[in-house]
C-alpha cells in the first residue's frame, strides 16, 4: 500500500484503541494503521519497544505519521524514531496534534494519497499556534 501509515500512541490502551476504531470507521482499510498504549507492565504509560512494533506494523513506503497524547508518549515516540534505521527514520514524523482528532484527520488526508508532509500539516493545523 502506498498511502501514508498512521500510528496512534496513548498512555492508555483504551484511548489508543478507541481512536483507532474512529480512524477505521472513517477510512476503512485504505490506510495502514496501528495503535499502542500502556507501559511495559500494562499500566498507564508508553513503551518504546511497542511503539517500534507499531511503526513496523503500519509501515508504508510513503512513510508513517505518529499521533501522541501527553509528554511521555511524545518523548518515547521520538526515541523510537531515533532507533529506526536511517532510511525509515527519514520517513516517520511525530505530529504535534491532539491524538484523536489528529489521527482521524491525518488518516483521512492519507487515504486520498497525500504525501507525509501534507498528512502532518493537516493534523498540526488542529493545534493552537
Amino acid at each position, binding site marked *: 500500500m502506498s498511502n501514508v501509515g498512521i500510528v496512534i500512541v496513548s498512555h492508555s490502551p483504551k484511548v489508543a484503541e478507541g481512536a483507532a476504531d474512529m480512524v477505521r470507521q472513517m477510512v476503512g482499510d485504505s490506510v495502514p494503521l496501528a495503535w499502542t498504549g500502556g507501559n*511495559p507492565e500494562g499500566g498507564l504509560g508508553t*513503551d518504546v519497544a511497542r511503539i517500534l512494533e507499531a511503526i513496523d506494523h503500519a509501515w508504508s513506503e510513503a512513510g508513517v505519521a505518529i499521533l501522541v497524547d501527553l509528554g*511521555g508518549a511524545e518523548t518515547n515516540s521520538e526515541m523510537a524514531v531515533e532507533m529506526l534505521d536511517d532510511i525509515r527514520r527519514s520517513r516517520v514524523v511525530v505530529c504535534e496534534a491532539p491524538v484523536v482528532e489528529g489521527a482521524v484527520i491525518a488518516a483521512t488526508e492519507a487515504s486520498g494519497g497525500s504525501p507525509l508532509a501534507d498528512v502532518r500539516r493537516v493534523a498540526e493545523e488542529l493545534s493552537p499556534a
Partner: protein
Amino acid sequence: MEQHALRHLIHSVASAVIAHAEQLTALDQAIGDGDHGINMKRGCEAVLADLDRLAAHALPAALKATGTVLVMKVGGASGPLYGTLFMTMGKELPEAPSHADVVRAFGAAIEAVRKLGKSDAGQKTLLDVLLPVHAELAAGAQDFATRLPRRAAEAAEATVPMKAIRGRASFLGERSIGHMDPGARSAALMVAALCAALAPEDKP
C-alpha cells in the same frame, strides 16, 4: 575502569533510585502524574537484573547498554531522557577517561537530553540539576565526591520556586510552583550515588 568497580557503580546508582522510589512518586503526585518513582524503579530493577551482562562490558559499552535498558523499560518520558544521557556518555567517553573527557562527554549528553526533551534551563526539569553539576565538574575534579552531590542537592532545591514549562507539570501552570521537580530530584540522587561509588575512600 575495572569490572568490579563498574559493577559497584551501576549497582549503587540503580539501588539509590529504587530506595527512593516512594519519595519520587510523592513529588510527582504533587505536580505530575505520580508515576516517576514507579517508572524509574522498574527501569533500575531491569538494570540490576541485567547487571552481569552490563558490567561485563568496558565503560563506554556498559553505559550505552544501561541507557538502552532504561529506554526500553522505564515507560515514561524519563526513560528516553535518562537513557539518552547514559547512551550519549557511552558514545562520547573513551575506555579510560580523563577529567576533561568526562566534562566533554557529560556536556554532550546533557545537550542530547535537552534536544530530546525540547527543554532548557529554568523550566523545572532534570536539566536544572544536570547543568549546574556539569559546571561544577568543569571547574575541577578535586574533592568532587563532596562538591558535586552538594551542588546537585542545592540545584534540585532551586527547582521548588520554578514554574514548569515542559512535561505533565506544565498543565498546572502557576500551581507547579512550590514543589521540587521529581526529575531534578532523581538526577540529584543519581549524582550523589555515582559520586559516593567513585569516591577515593569508597573504592572496593
